[in-house]
């Protein structure tokens, strides 16, 4: 250990750290029992990008080892909390005992902006059937039916969705049948999700189940075609800290019409109408790519990967959109917006960069943010020395090119793959095939994502589903200037004397997306990594023992 650390306390100087990633990896796994170590070795990878952009294989989306404290949540959390939660006008009813619902009660800080006082907003509510002994023994369908009726009587929502927690699957409640009955009875949309927590290895399974449900029960219900020349959907943007608001602002200035967002600041009507858009943008590839794929097959909407985290990335994404539409007016507008926004960004960036240059960051979070936020750090000269996702799959690390090679294990087979066909009347190619081919020839990439690793340098440690133990080790070895993860990791990291930024809830800060968001983030990181507070940890008499001795002597 000591040898490993040598030469690394000098991070203040420009000297590159002498730590060898191979040694670090060894250090991380050597305390594990043999079997565990073998498994973890496949999930801890030293990055190397070859000349064709190929990266090493990393094992991911596999079960967490029991007793190892993980960042991951459950399928229910991914389905209810992540994907459906940010929609304001659906009554989200948790079918199960009270805890699961309580803990997913507006904890993600997804913001929403109702269109007036009469607009429904249930996001501050938490609905649950609060199962008791009787239901566990005799079944909970009756109570579920009554709860739906009650929610309808009191709130008159447009839609009610039902989320199953662990016990529901075991006692055999047929939530889908109840949903069908109540839909018939009440005349509103009622749909259910079999998203029992144990189903998948992480939240990720819940995302997939949510995608399937929303696609089956909502997308395509409303064929009204909205005004607008450049119509698109923004998928996988959940409006944490108001990110979606900032992106909406930019779109508006560019003359882009946002038909729907999945699912930040969203409504059920937007989902119902989303198939009328002409392009799908994907922010978080992990949580939502299924909807994009299904919409393409059924309705003919192409999708592209974008990233609005980072000022440069935002500019790049806007240009990509303009290029897709091949419209000079839009291209000009986009350029004008970028030119207008950038000076303010640059000014802060330069100022902050001077203080942050060369410092190390680590990011272990989610299924896309650990990648996206590397852009922001790079913009202020900080290096991401190690990163990994909490619930991503291989394609989010290695790029979609590995999709055909991903082994389907029992856990993935659990989650239904919907069979989708082109809609006989509503499938409409958004561009003539020739145009698409030409764009592609010119290097425009549809339905593609390179993943995190291709953009990280060689020798960086990529770690999937990092454990509490590995986190501590990593911090001990590298002493990074900042560590990014979620609230569960926050205080443990800070107890090691390292500032910790939450990238799930943003520590109640934000927005961090697009141009103004970038400025907010630069300032926030500057504040954190240049804070003096850590220097007060040792009292003066411990820092200068001779002083204490002197007092004693006097």
């Amino acid at each position, binding site marked *: 250990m000591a040898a490993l650390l040598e030469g690394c306390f000098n991070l203040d100087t420009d000297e590159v750290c002498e730590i060898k990633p191979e040694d670090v990896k060894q250090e991380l796994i050597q305390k594990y*029992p043999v079997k565990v170590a073998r498994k973890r070795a496949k999930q801890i990878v030293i990055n190397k990008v070859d000349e064709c952009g190929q990266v090493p294989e990393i094992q991911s989306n596999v079960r967490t080892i029991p*007793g*190892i404290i993980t960042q991951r949540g459950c399928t229910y959390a991914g389905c209810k909390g992540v994907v459906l939660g940010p929609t304001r006008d659906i009554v989200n009813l948790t079918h199960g005992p009270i805890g699961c619902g309580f*803990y997913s009660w507006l904890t993600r800080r997804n913001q929403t902006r109702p269109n007036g006082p009469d607009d429904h907003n249930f996001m501050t*509510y938490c609905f649950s059937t609060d*199962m008791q002994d009787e239901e566990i023994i005799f079944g909970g369908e009756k109570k579920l039916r009554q709860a739906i009726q009650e929610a309808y009587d009191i709130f008159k929502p447009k839609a009610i969705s039902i989320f199953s927690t662990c016990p529901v699957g075991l006692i055999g409640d047929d939530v889908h049948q109840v949903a069908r009955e109540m839909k018939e009875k009440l005349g509103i949309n009622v749909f259910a999700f079999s998203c029992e*927590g144990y189903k*998948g290895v992480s939240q990720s399974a819940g995302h997939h189940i949510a995608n399937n449900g929303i696609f089956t029960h909502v997308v395509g219900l409303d064929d009204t075609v909205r005004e607008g020349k450049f119509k698109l959907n923004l998928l996988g943007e959940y409006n944490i800290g108001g990110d979606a608001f900032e992106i909406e602002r930019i779109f508006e200035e560019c003359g882009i019409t946002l038909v729907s967002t999945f699912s930040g600041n969203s409504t059920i009507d937007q989902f119902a109408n989303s198939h009328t858009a002409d392009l799908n943008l994907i922010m978080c590839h992990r949580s939502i790519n299924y909807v994009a794929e299904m919409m393409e097959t059924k309705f003919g909407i192409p999708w592209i990967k974008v990233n609005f985290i980072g000022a440069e990335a935002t500019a790049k994404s806007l240009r990509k959109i303009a290029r897709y539409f091949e419209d000079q007016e839009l291209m000009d507008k986009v350029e004008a917006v970028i030119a207008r926004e950038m000076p303010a960004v640059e000014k802060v960036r330069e100022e902050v960069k001077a203080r942050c240059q060369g410092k190390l960051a680590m990011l272990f979070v989610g299924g896309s943010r650990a990648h996206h936020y590397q852009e922001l750090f790079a913009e202020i000269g900080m290096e991401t020395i190690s990163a990994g996702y909490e619930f991503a799959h291989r394609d989010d690390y290695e790029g979609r090119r590995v999709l055909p090679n991903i082994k389907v294990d029992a*856990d993935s087979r659990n989650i239904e793959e919907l069979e989708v066909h082109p809609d006989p009347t509503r499938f409409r190619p958004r561009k003539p095939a020739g145009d698409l081919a030409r764009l592609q020839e010119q290097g425009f990439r549809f339905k593609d994502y390179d993943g995190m690793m291709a953009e990280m340098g060689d020798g960086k440690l990529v770690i999937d589903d990092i454990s509490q133990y590995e986190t501590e080790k990593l911090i001990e070895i590298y002493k990074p200037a900042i560590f990014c993860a979620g609230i569960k990791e926050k205080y443990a990291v800070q107890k*090691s004397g390292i500032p910790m930024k939450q990238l799930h809830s943003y520590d109640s800060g934000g927005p961090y997306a697009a141009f103004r968001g970038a400025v907010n983030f630069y300032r926030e990181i500057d504040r954190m990594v240049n804070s003096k507070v850590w220097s007060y940890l040792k009292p003066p008499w411990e820092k200068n023992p001779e002083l204490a001795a002197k007092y004693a002597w006097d």
Partner: protein
Amino acid sequence: MSDYSSPYISTTNACKLCKPLGACLAFRGIEGAVPFLHGSQGCATYMRRYIISHFREPMDIASSSLGEKHAVYGGEANLRQGLQNVMKKFGARLVGVATTCLTETIGDDVPMILRTFKREMAEQGTAHQDLPAIVNVATPSYSGTHMEGFHAAVRAVVEQLAECPEDAGRSAAVNLLPGFTSPADVRYLQEIMADCGIPVIVLPDISETLDGPALDDYRKIPDGGTSLAEIARMGCSRATIELGRTLFGHESAGRLLETRFQVPLHRLGVPIGLRESDRLFEVLQLLAGVETPEKHVLERGRLIDAYVDGHKYTFGKGAVIYGEEDLVIGLTSFLLEIGVKPLLCASGGKSGRLREAIEDVNDSILPELPIIREGVDFYEIAEEAESLSPDLLLGHSKGYHLARRFRIPLIRVGFPIHDRFGGQRVLHLGYRGAQELFDRIVNALLDAKQEASPVGYGYM
């Protein structure tokens, strides 16, 4: 309407948390302990997040991470593997295993699995001192709230670990079972006991484990907590003080110590406000055999002085109190002393004891009891409160929407507090806690008055 009949089937905005969360909190107050949830990992992750957002401290909860296969065939293998990993990497001295709704529904026989596990570990030559103590508690959330989980875990710890060898005499120590209070409260109780010269074993002791100092080297398990040696000696203590009126008549940890080891039990309400604190000091005098130390007598005197000075601000105001039952009881008792009229006392818990306890603490101060509702959610609390026009709310952060709706101040107490800073340091208990609560209440009322004043007076 009876206290617990609800016209509603569903629960909208619950005023309770789930059972294993309480158990994890209790285990966290034991030295070297790692709480462990037997179930799928989501529950552990959710609870960690919730506890952390209140205390702003690390909180590890291990999980057996069950999947679909285990939901069908049982979770034994995962539980065993999980325990081994926790032992290896955390060096835990105690693993507190609580079940979840999933494993309770499957019907895993956890005590049996643990017995086999311990036996096998011993057979494999794991030395006794390397094997952590393993305590288990059944915590299905479909019956009971986080408070039942908390008390069940404390009881399980005592039941499975407390001893008193035949030949051992009574020790000078007194067991103190404070229930779920804040770290600041526990620290203060310890100070009181020390001042009275009574050696004390507080179980659980979250004073440091959930409110620790900044460090530059992280410890996997925080310092502090009740030590296993102390717990083992609890059977020999000369008395137990157990706080919480809902526990009266229950098979609680205190009762167990009394029946199994003949440790005399003093049951008291949670000492909030003057009268309930007086009751605690009375017992302490008895146990210490000396008068209450001057320092605390002075604090008591200052509190009464404040009651007198502030009475004109508090008198005649009406309050809605919600949260854990024992907290509600204590706060109600306190409000009665300061002239604030409790209008509604509500809880998501339903021990069946709330009315009786409030009757007791009212002690004929009010001719008519406030409205008392057990097993309610915030939807019902709001409905009830609507016609009561309260001036003030007392409870945790989840009542914020009520405060916003009625445009009245919310005095944040208890758990969870995630929209204010310092929830772990809120002092509720004793004369000192009453003083702090009183100051906060008076100032909140003054603030509201000043805000509403068209002139903007500077003297209030």
